[in-house]
């Protein structure tokens, strides 16, 4: 049995934790608003560029281009987007296990990690991490995505890798986020011949159009994927902190009940002791005989 003092101590501890939880909840909800705005800005541009990239792929001549051509796969590059901080529920675990599962289908992987959580996870599993981006500041993401896109293109063109996958968390709404593994390169363009335009022209010519368009597309794609992940992370943290806050309140309530009962019991005991001893005194003390 814990004493009253212990219980009181515990109540204090839990309520200070609760305050931290509430602060984190508030921080992540404001960040979520910001992240969502960023995500909603990039989505239309990404969608259109994706459409353009896929549409180009339906051209006969494009299939010979390196960004579209399917090569024999020796090495696969993965870009995995995780978070730097914890306390966001199963967010990191979901995306990492999804990526790991994908890798285990007999891929010879090279990994680019974003976020320290993912770095620790894959480091522990002795995966081939060729580059890691830690401590991503929100403001640097846009240019970070650009340099990452350049890096991917460089190693793709240097034939260090033959395909590139990206693992990120797709944000649907505040309660639903789905981990996704998508292929970035070569570009998948099957079944997207909905816009039937055989007469379409490309300036200056198809090859240089592709050469200029793909880096932009990858940059936007990475930036979008990061925005998706970042928004999911904030949403996940907010939901989890909300739940944790509720739990903390419940615990405090339970402990307060317990404390009050203890206090009541102590008082009752004291009273009965007093009454008992008073009774004995009134009788004129213990029998002398």
């Amino acid at each position, binding site marked *: 049995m814990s004493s009253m003092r212990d219980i009181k101590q515990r109540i204090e501890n839990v309520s200070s934790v609760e305050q931290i939880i509430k602060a984190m909840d508030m921080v992540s909800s404001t960040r979520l608003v910001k992240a969502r705005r960023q995500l909603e800005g990039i989505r239309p541009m990404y969608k259109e560029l994706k459409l353009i990239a896929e549409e180009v792929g339906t051209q006969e001549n494009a299939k010979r281009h390196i960004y579209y051509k399917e090569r024999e796969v020796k090495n696969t590059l993965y870009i995995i987007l995780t978070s730097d901080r914890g306390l966001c529920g199963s967010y990191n675990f979901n995306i990492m296990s999804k990526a790991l599962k994908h890798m285990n289908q007999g891929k010879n992987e090279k990994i680019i990690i974003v976020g320290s959580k993912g770095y620790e996870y894959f480091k522990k599993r002795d995966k081939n991490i060729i580059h890691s981006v830690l401590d991503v500041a929100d403001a640097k993401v846009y240019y970070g995505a650009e340099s990452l896109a350049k890096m991917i293109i460089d190693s793709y063109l240097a034939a260090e890798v033959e395909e590139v996958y990206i693992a990120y968390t797709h944000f649907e709404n505040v309660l639903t986020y789905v981990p996704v593994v998508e292929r970035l390169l070569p570009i998948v363009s099957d079944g997207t011949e909905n816009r039937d335009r055989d007469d*379409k022209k490309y300036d200056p010519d198809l090859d240089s159009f592709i050469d200029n368009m793909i880096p*932009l597309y990858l940059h936007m794609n990475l930036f979008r994927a990061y925005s998706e992940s970042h928004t999911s992370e904030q949403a996940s943290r907010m939901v989890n902190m909300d739940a944790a806050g509720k739990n903390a309140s419940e615990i405090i309530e339970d402990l307060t009940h317990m404390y009050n009962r203890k206090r009541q019991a102590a008082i009752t005991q004291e009273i009965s002791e007093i009454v008992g001893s008073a009774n004995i005194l009134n009788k004129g003390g213990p029998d002398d005989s």
Partner: protein
Amino acid sequence: MMEQETSLLEAKKIILNITTPRGLKLSEEADMVIMRCVDGDFGVLPGHEPVSTVLGDGILRIINDGMEKKLAVFGGVVEVDNTSVNIYSTIAQKPEEIDLERAIRDREEAEAGILERTEELRYQSLGVGVRRALVRIEVSTNFEEDDFSEEG
């Protein structure tokens, strides 16, 4: 039949949409749009054949009802068809959004850098810096002149 179609197109204007990573930047009608592509200026009138091309760093000119508007657009992809021009670019700035002092400073810094350094990669990026600063300066100063002439 042909005549009907052309008259329809003549009455129509081109709809210009500029999309940036922050969402739809601009959507308006125009008689003519002139943009700077990687291999030179490219003008579009209503009824243009469908074409896709890539932009360089330069001035985008929108001509509508005899008025000309200028925007600084750096890189991007354009999709043209007979009634619309869709631009997808990372940077598109209206004259009022350009910080002229900063552009002038950027230009000076980049030009000074070019004189000092000889390293190829650095040289290239400085070149881009100068070009972009020049575009910004031109877009922004023309805007001010236009303002002036309207008042006078």
